[in-house]
């Protein structure tokens, strides 16, 4: 049976046509995107993960310019909580124009890689790097420690981590990053219209499922089928969290390119702040297998991490460089993708989709339902 017509509608001929358009196979695929939200699991590499005091301190530090060397800006300046923890600029502006679009900070707990290029394998490492990056917060380890010691946060910090006199500047930096991480772990997107649809399908409640708009259902069918979107945008977060060439140019200037995952791996493999390193609090080094197992590939160059699609309608502009202004532009990018940019033996799943205008609109309608219910 291709379509699941609701019993309620069958009993009421003449009412507005509403039904579940998905095949059994499409319903099975749809179930794989939930349930949402997932259960929380503390990060074993961060001893203050899920610690209420650390979460509160992390939240306060996140919005305080004390984390930049000259008090010029806070984490929240670029990751604006009022704008889904991003901003509307195509490329982030730190002390200078940075290389990439600011990613949202929701749903980050438990990922394997962080950042567009995956230069971190933990949320605390991803929180640490911007603090000491010269083009961003620009602290040295020492200036950060001095700033914390002289700040109103010192009592909370020492209550969590002990006397700062017994902590080197390195350790203070890592501890600050771990408080930020414990806060960021709490940021999740709310349930969406899609989640209600998905859960109704799981319950077999076709009457409830049929409330999901037809356009969004048709868009979902494209997402699962002809669009091939779900090959990379899969799982609870609609992301495989791996790295791909999506056919987006990656020049930064006339003489410079964004190396993407290639640069991210160079950074990661020389970093002291990995799950395999001494700063992890996990004696079992869970998760360190990933950084230990990396194999370099020429295809790393110019590839970027698949972003999550939850709350995607709230996080424009899109792609690693923010070069696409809205969801329709993203769909049209894939619809008309320049396959000449892709290696003949590379991302073979990408090809021109030849979607009609109606289908473009349907796919956008589906993506919009991945945002939290209004």
């Amino acid at each position, binding site marked *: 049976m291709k379509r699941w017509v609701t019993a309620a509608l069958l009993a009421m001929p003449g009412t507005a046509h509403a039904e579940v358009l998905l095949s059994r196979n499409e319903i099975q695929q749809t179930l794989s995107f939930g349930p949402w939200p997932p259960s929380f699991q503390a990060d074993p590499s961060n001893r203050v993960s899920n610690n209420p005091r650390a979460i509160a301190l992390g939240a306060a530090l996140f919005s305080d310019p004390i984390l930049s060397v000259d008090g010029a800006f806070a984490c929240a300046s670029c990751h604006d909580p009022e704008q889904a923890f991003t901003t509307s600029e195509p490329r982030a502006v730190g002390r200078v124009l940075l290389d990439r679009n600011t990613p949202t900070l929701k749903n980050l707990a438990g990922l394997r890689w962080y950042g567009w290029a995956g230069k971190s394998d933990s949320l605390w490492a991803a929180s640490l790097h911007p603090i000491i990056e010269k083009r961003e917060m620009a602290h040295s380890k020492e200036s950060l420690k001095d700033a914390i010691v002289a700040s109103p946060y010192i009592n909370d910090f020492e209550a969590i981590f002990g006397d700062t006199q017994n902590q080197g500047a390195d350790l203070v930096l890592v501890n600050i990053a771990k408080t930020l991480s414990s806060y960021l772990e709490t940021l999740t997107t709310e349930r969406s219209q899609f989640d209600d649809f998905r859960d109704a399908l799981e319950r077999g409640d076709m009457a409830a499922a049929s409330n999901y708009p037809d356009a969004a259902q048709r868009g979902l069918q494209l997402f699962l089928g002809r669009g091939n979107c779900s090959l990379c945008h899969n799982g609870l977060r609609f992301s495989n969290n791996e790295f791909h060439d999506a056919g987006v140019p990656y020049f930064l200037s006339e003489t410079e390119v964004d190396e993407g995952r290639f640069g991210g791996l160079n950074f990661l493999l020389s970093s002291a702040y990995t799950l395999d390193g001494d700063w992890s609090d996990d004696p079992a080094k869970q998760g360190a297998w990933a950084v230990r197992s990396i194999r*370099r590939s020429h295809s790393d160059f110019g590839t970027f991490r698949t972003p999550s699609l939850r709350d995607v309608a709230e996080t424009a502009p899109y792609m690693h460089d923010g070069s696409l202004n809205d969801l329709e532009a993203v769909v049209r990018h894939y619809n008309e993708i320049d396959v*000449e940019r892709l290696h003949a033996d590379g991302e073979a799943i990408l090809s021109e989709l030849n979607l009609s205008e109606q289908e473009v609109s349907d796919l956008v309608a589906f993506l919009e339902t991945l945002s939290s219910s209004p």
Partner: protein
Amino acid sequence: MLKILLPIAAIVLSNGAEADERPIFDAHIHYSHDAVKLVPPEQVAKILRDAGVRKALVSSSDDNGTQLLAAAAPDIVVPALRPYRRRGEINTWMHDDTVIDYLEENLAKNEYEAIGEFHAYGDDIKTSVIQRMIELAKERNLILHHHGDREAVDLIFETWPEARVLWAHSGFDDPANVVEALDAYPRLWADLAYRSDMVSRGVLDPDWKTAFEAHPDRFMVGTDTFAPERWYYVGPHADFSRGWLNLLPDQIADNIAFANAERLLASE
């Protein structure tokens, strides 16, 4: 006195390290229409020189890129004629008779060492366009730079047994199969472009090591600049190549880095 000697020693060591850097013959380079617009020929020449690439087999879609680059770096560029006017023709070109006109026009006005890189699988080789292309190569004794499968390699040699064929990406085949092909055809060479399975985290793959030892005179490296931005990977790729070649005996490493390609060009 010691204070003076130390800096001099440091300079000598520094210069020595540069002089010792293994030169590279990059056997798989494209400078196609979109790259020409975004990376000027002078910039491309600088990228090649900075990377220590002393020769590069360059083919472009269309050929204008190769000619521009040959003018900017005549000491480096070894020109090859690609049967495409745009990269997007890789799946259709063998069914397009106008490709022959394009090849003949360019062969009449420019000098080339090879035809390719061209994409062809299996029976594609039997199409009239590819058969004529092979004929044109035979008339001028040009190398064929072929991207495709073993069946296509077999058919190329069936068409022209004396051909010199450079198998792009070593056919993306397993090292044992590549060795078998090289055993079968003494006039087959193999580039390693867009492959990184030769090495993992500083350890040479044992199957590839066996292949390099079995045929130390047939492999060569290449970057494959298939998109404009990939020009900025020529330097990192040369460094990558030097890194894994250092794991081989010097003679084999030199062969793969540059000598095999140079000998292929010098062969008849």
